[in-house]
């Protein structure tokens, strides 16, 4: 990994990844304490994808993601206080507490967030891109989804329509090798996702999702292609989640050795090592970053603990626009 960036840029990437990692570790703890309920899909292990790709989008671009979207929302810039409040279900949450972990939204950052039905987001991303093209705007829509989604009809229908109408949408598949409890090879006759995209005449590449630099380079280049109007593009990030699919499953479907093997390529420790080797990272830098993150997390937790619930009287508010 020859770092093609400045020390500041390197530390920024590291900070993004660490911030996601510590946030997710804290949410796991809060879930066990009964503060966070329902489903909780953690992003630990896949941090390099969000950290490496999302900063390449501009504020005008749009992001569509899935129920495993904590990392994407953090990097996209929604305040940690709002995200933690949403996990608690509080009214100050980024979806007024109504969505919870699987449904983060932030209109101010065109973050169309947590759409939790597998592959449900792809047709929506295609539509956002269609609107941009028809209104002559040179914006890009980034659409994140997991390997499970490639089994849905919507994946094939969306890639075909995007290619057919040369729409400015960037399909970003986070292939973490498991669709909940089913390994990729056990549910795909053609496990090479990039190859599937080429069948619909989309340019597509496979990227090492554990290498934040590789992710950054490939994504930056793909966004440029889409923004130039060359049509849709697909990236398949090969990555891995270190934790259960959601809180909690027994992970019977994968061997513990496999998890340990992938942990050796932990995107954070490997990148930190690369920065040290390049003389860009001192221990004091790391301690400062960790301390800042820890403070930010505890302030977010306190904010979530103390902010009020949405009053029951507002239950039916916003079922329709403008009506009580």
């Amino acid at each position, binding site marked *: 990994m020859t770092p093609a960036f400045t020390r500041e840029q390197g530390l920024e990437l590291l900070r993004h990844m660490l911030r996601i990692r510590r946030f997710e570790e804290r949410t796991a703890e809060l879930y066990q304490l009964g503060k966070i*309920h*329902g*489903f909780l899909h953690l992003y630990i292990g896949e941090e390099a994808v969000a950290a490496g790709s999302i900063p390449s989008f501009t504020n005008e671009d749009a992001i569509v993601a899935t129920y495993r979207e904590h990392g994407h929302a953090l990097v996209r810039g929604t305040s940690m206080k709002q995200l933690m409040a949403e996990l608690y*279900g*509080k009214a100050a949450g980024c979806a007024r*507490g*109504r*969505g*919870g972990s*699987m*449904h983060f939204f932030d209109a101010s950052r065109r973050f169309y967030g947590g*759409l*939790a*039905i*597998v*592959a*449900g987001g792809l047709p929506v991303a295609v539509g956002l891109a269609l609107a941009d093209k028809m209104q002559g705007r040179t914006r890009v829509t980034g659409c994140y989804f997991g390997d*499970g*989604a490639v*089994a*849905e*009809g919507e994946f094939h229908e969306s890639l075909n329509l995007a290619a057919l109408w040369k729409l400015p949408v960037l399909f970003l598949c986070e292939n973490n090798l498991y*669709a*909940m*409890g*089913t390994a990729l090879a*056990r*549910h*795909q006759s053609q496990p090479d996702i990039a190859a599937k995209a080429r069948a619909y005449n989309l340019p597509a590449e496979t990227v090492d999702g554990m290498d934040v630099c590789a992710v950054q380079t490939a994504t930056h280049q793909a966004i440029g292609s889409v923004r130039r109007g060359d049509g849709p593009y697909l990236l398949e990030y090969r990555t891995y989640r270190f934790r259960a699919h959601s809180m909690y*499953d027994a992970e*019977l*479907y994968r061997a513990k050795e496999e998890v340990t093997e992938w942990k050796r390529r932990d995107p954070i420790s490997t990148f930190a090592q690369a920065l040290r080797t390049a003389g860009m990272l001192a221990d004091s830098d790391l301690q400062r970053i960790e301390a800042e993150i820890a403070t930010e997390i505890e302030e977010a937790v306190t904010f979530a603990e103390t902010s009020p*619930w*949405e009053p*029951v009287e507002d*239950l*039916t508010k916003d*079922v329709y626009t403008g009506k009580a």
Partner: protein
Amino acid sequence: MTTITYREAVRSGLREALKRDPRVFLMGEDVGKYGGTYACSKGLLDEFGPERIRDTPLSESTFVGAGIGAALGGMRPIVEVMTVNFSLLALDQILNNAATLRHMSGGQFNVPLVVRMATGAGRQVAAQHSHSLEGWYAHIPGITVLTPATVTDAQGMLLAALQEPDPVFIFEHAYLYSMEGELEGSRPAVDISRAAVRRPGNDLSLITFGGSLWKALAAATQLAQEGIEAEVLDLRVLRPLDTGTILTSVRKTHRAVVIDEAWRTGSFAAEIAAQIMEGAFYDLDAPVARVCSEEVPIPYPKHLEEAALPQPDKIVKAVRRLLG
């Protein structure tokens, strides 16, 4: 009398079905290695092997359609769609193929298919994972719709369904899986055509099905302390609806409250109320009341979800309004 959980009842029904008939096989998302998202098929893969316990890709339309085809081809498939929320992707196969083929082919084909899915809200999993849509399915001529609320029905109905020549849909309320209950007899033969009076009473009829049965019984207990004896009817089958038992009860009590977790407008409760009006108009001493979910996407926070869903105290209030 043995005490087992609803989950164990479903599992023993599945095992019994698989043992009895080699044509029977189970197909669905994570039913194999993962053991079922609600652990209803845990251990079946080891016992019956991957040929008959088939993990599918997340392709609901296709694997439900494949279930239809396999049934046409002489098999007796049990298809598990993880939850009713994901069955929307398969509605076309269900309505236009499974339900219609027999009549449309002039009686040449029948589709002996059983489809199981979880339904209902109450676990704070937010709007996209909390639907109650069994009423939609009960609108479709050509299929049978079952809503087992007890462990005996959870086990017995599957076996009875497999004897049917036409498609049967079984909705298991997600809240019931960990519920314990008394299994009546070791292998109870169970009918799938009649409603059951779970609690006799003379002053009014509480008519409900599935997960709401236990809320209705709780309300009946509360009402008994005020000297009001409520009869609680468990419909068990939404299609064909056992209108006879409903009308017999209402003719005796002269008052009816229907409890249904779906949204009020166009709910199955509306159908029941209409049939009561048509069949027992001159026996009604008060208008039929309905206790349904508030017309709002089910929110994540506990206090809002509880406010949105039918509750025992809402049922008791509805009864008091009826008694004037």
